[in-house]
């Protein structure tokens, strides 16, 4: 069961100081399967399964008067349906609702993995996953815009705001193209990745550093051992606050990614004003 132990050993071999190397994936079956079959891919798969199971369970046996389980499901569903999709997309929201629900729940579960004792690692701090979702969001909002306005019509819609005087066109069109077509998916992916990467790094600083301080047996940098122990205790205690903060950040990032995707779709399918 080499695969399993490689999957569930969080912070294994965490070397001080934490850095980019702390985010390296561990292949589950080195030599047998390709290296990309690693613990982080596995936890992404588990996250997807959890999301699917959650939604299927919540959708099953629904009644007009909701029970406790259904109330929970409807709370999450309505959060995306009414709080994001309907608010931003208006009456057309039903077409994009499945994408947004899937997006929000998939990102949220994988972000919460950062605080989940089993993995202790937010999947989207591996940027490949974030790029994947950003790519899909990019395809979605551009596709929606092209479907609505036609290819040329959409390009015009996306790059030329109404009412811009002709002399400014050479300036505005490239800027708008850059901003709306190129930069949007990049910022979408980067924002998600960077928040979780940084958050996980801070957690490791406090947890791994605190552990090092706590277990120090000889004075370090001129500080006596008891002081190091106290500092270690404080550091570990403080890491709980950071964990709480990261719970918040992970949820907010799932929300922001979904809201921005909806926003981009909304602006792509908007009537020219």
């Amino acid at each position, binding site marked *: 069961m080499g695969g399993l132990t490689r999957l569930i050993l969080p912070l294994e071999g965490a070397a001080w100081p934490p850095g980019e190397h702390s*985010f390296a994936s561990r292949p589950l079956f080195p030599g047998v399967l390709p290296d990309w079959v*690693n613990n982080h891919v596995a936890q992404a798969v588990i996250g997807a399964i959890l999301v699917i199971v959650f939604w299927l369970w919540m959708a099953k046996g629904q009644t007009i008067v909701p029970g406790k389980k259904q109330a929970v499901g409807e709370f999450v569903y309505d959060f995306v349906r009414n709080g994001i999709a309907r608010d931003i997309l208006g009456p057309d929201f039903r077409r994009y609702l*499945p994408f947004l629900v899937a997006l929000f729940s998939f990102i949220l579960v994988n972000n919460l993995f950062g605080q989940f004792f089993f993995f202790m690692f937010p999947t989207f701090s591996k940027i490949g996953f974030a790029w994947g979702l950003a790519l*899909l969001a990019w395809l979605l909002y551009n596709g929606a815009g092209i479907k609505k306005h036609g290819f040329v019509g959409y390009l015009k819609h996306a790059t030329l705001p109404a009412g811009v005087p002709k002399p400014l066109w050479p300036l505005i069109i490239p800027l708008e193209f850059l901003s709306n077509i190129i930069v949007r998916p990049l910022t979408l992916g980067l924002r998600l990745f960077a928040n979780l990467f940084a958050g996980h790094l801070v957690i490791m600083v406090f947890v791994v550093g605190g552990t090092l301080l706590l277990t120090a047996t000889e004075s370090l940098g001129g500080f006596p051992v008891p002081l190091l122990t106290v500092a270690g205790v404080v550091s570990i205690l403080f890491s709980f606050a950071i964990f709480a903060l990261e719970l918040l950040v992970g949820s907010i990032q799932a929300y922001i990614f979904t809201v921005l995707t909806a926003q981009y779709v909304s602006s792509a399918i908007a009537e020219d004003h």
Partner: protein
Amino acid sequence: MLPLASESPLGPLLPEHPEELFVGVVLFLIILAVVWKVVVPMFEKTYAERTAAIQGGIERAEAAQAEAAAALEEYKAQLATAREEASRIREEAKAQGAAILADMRQQATEESSRLLANAKAQIDAERASAVNELRTEIGGLATTLAGRIVGESLDDDARARRTVERFIADLESQPAEHA
């Protein structure tokens, strides 16, 4: 750890394994398919049913309200009819009472006038008979008186006058038996 990530100038901005991107996309598409085909339709179906149920409830309540209003209307109409009927009956009774009263009064008047007429006729008859009797009696008395006057003295004026006066006094003192 692959050298790709750490040695690239982009650092962690490049995926450690490009397959991550692929895996992320595929996983998301699987979730999307399930959510799209199963989850959202089921939730929306429940919501639609709930809306229908609430709307149906409202419609039912409205129907019940309309029914109650109609019943009230009918009841009020019935009440008005009954009131009208009652007042009509009262009026009728009053009129009937008045008619009966007038009838009775008339009957009483007729009766009394009849009694009066009877009494009058009787009195008249009695008076006639009394007058007759009196006439007869006065004749007899006059004869008797004449006899007495003649028997005693016809030229004694004073005596004759006294006799007549006595006679009249007798007449007056006599009780009116058949008055």
